[in-house]
């Protein structure tokens, strides 16, 4: 009898442990909407080119160049990946913040200072073997990024200052701070009057991966860092205890507080982690591509990363895909300019259009009714 009951309980438990089928709706928002958004943005981009007196043949040529420059050849793929590395790293940090309910606009500043710290660790610790030097330089970047972001986190946790405002202000401070640092004699490159830092020695550089094929291929070991970061953030958000607290606070801060989670600590920890990832993005850029720091070397990556995080729906894998797409647009955009003479600004417009379409899934569904399950009535009834 009791054995019978146990059996019954077990089948009931088993039934409850069956995963609900992955919602069709998830598939729509995660896959179909972005694909259509890209198509719609490219189409509108074409219309804009038409409006600015670009003839049809050139438009066709420019989109071919976009494809060629992003995925059409080994150098193109190398450029796409190289551009994607900092975008994905910083985007992961922002996604993590979004999950914890923090709208961090400060990736740009965290990235600049993190990159600066990595450069300094590079030339100040010259002489170390690379196996120690490179990790130290990366760590310096992550640490400074984390500290800089924690300022905004600490302000929010202790005084309630809104992180959007404080991170924007911290961005402005970081721009000027970087200018100031680059003119300091122990940082500025010898014999230069303009603000530019000393170069990073080879022992702290992220090694190029494909230069044995062609010295112009810039893809560097940061790509492994990027993939590791994707896995780490996935683990952090969906497996770790602290990540559970991040997500809970982001979804419902009241319930998180009632469950005994400490919001102040969570805010600071989430900001610091996000800052560390942005700092790593900066570090990978200077150690892998730029070789030194110059004013504004970030080139807006920290802002583009916001779009990457949003487009990736704050999911690590989504961020990876979105980062690759943005990297492809950047690499392909350069080719477009060279081959078809179309302004690189057009790429910014297309990027912006993609974001707009993704942010408005209903608009995408209205334009492209195919592929979406029809739902006439609002979900309702037996709730």
């Amino acid at each position, binding site marked *: 009898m009791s054995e019978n009951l146990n059996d019954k309980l077990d089948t009931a438990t088993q039934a409850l442990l069956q995963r*609900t089928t992955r919602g069709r709706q998830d598939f729509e928002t995660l896959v179909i909407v972005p694909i259509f958004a890209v198509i719609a943005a490219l189409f509108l981009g074409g219309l804009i080119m038409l409006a600015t007196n670009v003839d049809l043949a050139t438009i066709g040529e420019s989109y071919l160049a976009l494809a060629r420059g992003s995925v059409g050849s080994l150098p193109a793929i190398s450029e796409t990946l190289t551009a994607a590395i900092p975008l994905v790293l910083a985007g992961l940090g922002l996604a993590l913040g979004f999950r914890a309910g923090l709208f961090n606009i400060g990736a740009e500043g965290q990235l600049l200072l993190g990159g600066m710290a990595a450069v300094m660790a590079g030339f100040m610790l010259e002489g170390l073997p690379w196996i120690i030097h490179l990790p130290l330089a990366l760590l310096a970047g992550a640490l400074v990024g984390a500290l800089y972001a924690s300022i905004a986190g600490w302000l929010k946790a202790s005084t309630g200052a809104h992180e959007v405002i404080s991170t924007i202000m911290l961005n402005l401070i970081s721009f000027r701070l970087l200018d100031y640092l680059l003119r300091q004699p122990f940082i500025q490159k010898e014999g230069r009057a303009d603000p530019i830092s000393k170069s990073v020695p080879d022992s702290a550089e992220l090694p190029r991966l494909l230069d044995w094929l062609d010295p112009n291929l810039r893809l560097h070991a940061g790509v492994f860092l990027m993939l590791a970061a994707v896995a780490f953030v996935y683990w952090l958000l969906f497996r770790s205890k602290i990540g559970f607290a991040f997500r809970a606070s982001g979804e419902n801060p009241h319930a998180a507080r009632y469950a005994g989670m400490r919001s102040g600590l969570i805010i600071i920890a989430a900001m610091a982690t996000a800052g560390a990832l942005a700092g790593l993005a900066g570090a990978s850029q200077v150690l892998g591509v730029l070789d030194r720091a110059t004013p504004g070397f970030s080139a807006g990556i920290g802002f583009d990363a916001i779009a990457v995080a949003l487009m990736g729906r704050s999911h690590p894998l989504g961020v990876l895909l979105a980062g690759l797409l943005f990297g492809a647009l950047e690499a392909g955009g350069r080719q477009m300019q060279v081959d078809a003479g179309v302004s690189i600004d057009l790429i910014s417009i297309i990027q912006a259009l993609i974001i707009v379409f993704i942010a408005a899934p209903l608009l995408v569904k209205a334009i492209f009714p195919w592929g979406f399950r029809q739902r006439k009535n609002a979900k309702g009834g037996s709730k």
Partner: protein
Amino acid sequence: MDVELRGITKRFGPVVANDAINLHIRAGEVLGLLGENGAGKSTMMNILSGLYTPDEGEILIDGKSVTFEDPGDGIAAGIGMVHQHFMLVPVFTVAENVVLGVEPTGRFDYLDLKTARKQVREINDRYGLEVDPDALIESLPVGIQQRVEILKVLFRSADVIILDEPTAVLTPQEVEDFFEIVRSLRDAGKAIVFITHKLHEILEISDRISVLRHGRITGEGDPAKLTTETLAEMMVGRPVSFTVDKAAPKAGAPMLTVSDLCLLDEHDDFALDHVSLQVRSGEVVGIAGVQGNGQTELVEALTGLTRPATGTILFDGQDVTRSSVRERHRMGMAHVPEDRLRSGMIASFSVAENMVLNSYYDPTYGRGLEIDWPKAQTTAARYCIDFDVRTPSVFLPAGHLSGGNQQKMVVARELERETKLVIASQPTRGLDVGSIEYIHERLIEARDEGDGVLIVSSELDEIMGLSDRILVMFEGRIVAEFDATNGPVDRNAVGLAMAGASE
């Protein structure tokens, strides 16, 4: 105006929300519509107000068949609905809210508020609503806000008024006033549909009752010939016990001792005014009182969410006045929060995630930095079975469960551990009879296992049914105490104390 539903069927995918329903709504009559959550009441009313179109069947108004394409058609036909959740703009005045969307305008789209106020005042006087047209919504108590919703419907000249769970947000006194208004509307010839799952209310106010279960009408009748027992059986499909079966308490050592607890609100007034109380193991202490008299603050102080200004809290012999929420939780304090959606659960999280919401850090769910999810999920599945949480899977977002199942999930999470003290705030608010019965049984079970149980509720019936001792809170103080172990407590005396009469 007479409205008749004939053979209305509505399906959502495989779910039949309404199954061949026949219903007759007559002018000058209150039709009580009774049913558990998910029985199909809301679907039916949404069909009637034009939000949904039925798959089969027809709607007849004064004998003529009509079809509604969108919500505007329902209003145009004279059918108005007062929703459970108010749809008012808090910073607008009553008159502005009432005319919103159908504003009387002059030349050049000039907003004629003077006319609006006059019209509002006329309706006010005709039905005895007594609402000041110039008051700001945010300054009004919930009961008055509800009257504004009724004003809105009347302003749009509705002849059929659907009231969806109108008393859920009201205090006992407000319910009485509200019933007066419903009667005056009925006497003025309006047809009223009163949707609820509260049995005594439906018996008091209705002229006719229809009971809905699993999308079908399972009973109809005259309230004079029906009792709460028969109605409950029609609604749930089995006999329901209303009195909580419980043995005499075996009260033991003090589990919770609160002395001289004070807490100030933002205006530096006493939110808690020298509150002292004791809960012993093996007894249920009920805190009665109209909402907003310090109960929320008391529970927050007891569970560690706020720090009291003065006073001490002893839990199981230890001073926990300055301990964190988590420390108290680990010591065996269970807390069922008063508002599950706001603070008891996370709607977008799965049932499994919600089940470990406040114990995920525990080594049971993984020793290191990682949560052992398979373990958490299996535990959650077991809790669901133990507490009759009806869900197809523990991976389903908790927001997809019905209110009763959500609450059972929260109660399961809190009680399925080694507990010493259970603090349950409004544990059955907004739930159907079956869930209420179940949760009450579980609370008594916790008592019989030797826990101290503290129940805070604005439902006097709930307090009376469960408590071994009753404390009454009024304006931040404990103003009265009743012992229920030697025979039932005088309900009137408790009610008077709740109103502050013992002052």
